[in-house]
């Protein structure tokens, strides 16, 4: 049981980490109330894979399309964040996510709606699960290392200063628009990397993987790992994904073939139970970190 489960868990964690760590730059470090990260993944994944699968174009062109769409949406979100109050922006970023999802679900002639896009290909050299895992882990490690050093750079300090007190930070020459726009673009790049791997791992691009509960899961990883902490969030993501996959393992066909049943709960109960469990974990994490999640402004 353990090796198949571990391989699956590690692969999913490696695939998910780029978007979580990218989002951590905006929400965790920058304290920008942004809940549209899964919307960014959605807008990166569909142009990328539709270009390759539906329009039968070059993967490179698909990648460019996915990246461009994700970056443009990140710029729109950044603009919206400059125009709106923080909490209003939070709600409107969810609205943007829902609107994009709704368009994808209804544009059936291209996206196939709720059925999703099947037969998502893998690169030839990543055809086996073992190689796929190694590549996903290497990319995740490279991304985490990049963000780790970025976090300790002038950009990271500027982002932290803005999150502590915007006016004071701007008074010492930190440019909010530039810093936050860059943070949103990094989050979009993270979402794009995840979108490159996730559908090809499942051989399916399904809109049901991009609903709001997926966003809550990402928020939970950040809150549980410590907002803004790269290594803490990485650890929390790995552990929470192992827990999440441990609960759903009975739904994975190739694992079922091995006869493994990690938790013997009927599938109709499993979904709701998982929602309740993750709700409890998120609440407990916020309770535990209620002083660190949105700290009181420093005063001179």
């Amino acid at each position, binding site marked *: 049981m353990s090796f198949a489960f571990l391989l699956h868990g590690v692969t999913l964690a490696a695939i998910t980490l780029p978007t979580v760590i990218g989002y951590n730059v905006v929400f965790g470090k920058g304290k920008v109330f942004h809940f549209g990260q899964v919307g960014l993944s959605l807008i990166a994944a569909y142009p990328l894979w539709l270009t390759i699968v539906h329009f039968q174009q070059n993967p490179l062109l698909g990648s460019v399309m996915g990246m461009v769409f994700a970056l443009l949406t990140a710029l729109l979100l950044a603009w*919206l964040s400059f125009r709106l109050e923080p909490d209003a922006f939070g*709600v409107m970023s969810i609205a943007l996510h829902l609107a994009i999802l709704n*368009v994808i679900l*209804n544009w059936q002639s291209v996206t196939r709606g709720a059925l999703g896009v099947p037969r998502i290909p893998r690169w030839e050299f990543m055809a086996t699960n073992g190689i796929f895992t190694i590549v996903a882990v290497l990319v995740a490690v490279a991304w985490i290392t990049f963000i780790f050093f970025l976090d300790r750079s002038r950009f990271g300090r500027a982002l932290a200063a803005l999150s502590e007190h915007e006016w004071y930070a701007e008074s010492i020459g930190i440019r909010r628009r530039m810093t936050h726009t860059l943070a949103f673009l990094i989050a979009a790049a993270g979402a794009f990397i995840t979108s490159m791997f996730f559908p090809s791992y499942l051989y399916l691009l399904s809109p049901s993987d991009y609903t709001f509960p997926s966003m809550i899961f990402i928020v939970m990883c950040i809150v549980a790992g410590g907002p803004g902490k790269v290594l803490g969030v990485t650890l929390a993501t790995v552990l929470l994904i192992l827990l999440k996959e441990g609960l759903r393992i009975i739904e994975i066909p190739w694992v079922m073939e091995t006869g493994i049943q990690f938790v013997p709960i009927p599938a109709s109960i499993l979904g709701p139970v998982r929602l309740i469990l*993750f709700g409890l974990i*998120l609440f407990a994490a916020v309770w535990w970190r209620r002083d660190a*999640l949105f700290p009181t402004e420093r005063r001179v």
Partner: protein
Amino acid sequence: MQLVINALIAGSLAALIAGGLALVYGVLGVFNLALGQMVLVGGYATWWLYQSLALPLVVSVFGGVMIGAIVAWCAFEVFVAPFYKRHRFLPLVTTIALSMMIDGVLLLLFEARPRSILANAKTIVALGDARISLEQMFLIAITFILLCLCAYVLHSTVIGRRIRAVVQNDHAAMSLGINAPLLHRMIFIVSGMLAALGGVFIGIDQNLTPTLAFPITIKAYAAIIAGGKGNLWGAIICAYLIALIEQMVVGIEWFGAFYVPAGYQQSVALLFIILFLLFKPSGLFMLKNRSA
């Protein structure tokens, strides 16, 4: 004509929910993202009382609204009160956690199947070339009465003056002897009751499904933000406006060439509001707070 009636029906439901929320935002300054789930709690509770326990409809509706009030009160005590004085953004995250838990419980108890409180056929009335059911007329009338009642309480009673004082300046109101924490609780419970009543209307007019929750929440907040945060009447007007936009998007033949498919109704309305807020971020009717 049919478009206006449809907008009036959808707008009445949205106004009921957004009105309560605007009060909560005005008084507490917090967003409750479990609102859609509270709507469903009221609807499902009424369905259970009416269909499973076979209680009379009026008793079931009253029971559903009361269960909504109890859930709202518990939600306030556990998920809002310990957090909103520390930072007003914290309840936004804790209520997301609450929304997941309520979603899970609703799915366990009622499953994902659509549920309708009144299973029998509705009586349709013709108004010129438009059609409306008696239940929908009742929904519009009840919303109108509740909004009038709300206006009366807010503008002509002692408690209304206290609420407006707390909205304008929490600390100044407390210094004058107004029990602001008690008012916070009351307002949150009232918003929960209005939300539960909204759920009853959904259960009577359409079907209840757990997937309805988030779109309801987001549309209500879109109305609040577009109406100018904390402005009760702005939120209510914008709830009707959003409903009208949604109906017009799918009901009009655009450029004499095509109709927008009904599935895009929600997206177009949300994207329109996002674009509108980019150019007028303070909303249509922004209130200015008094500062001491």
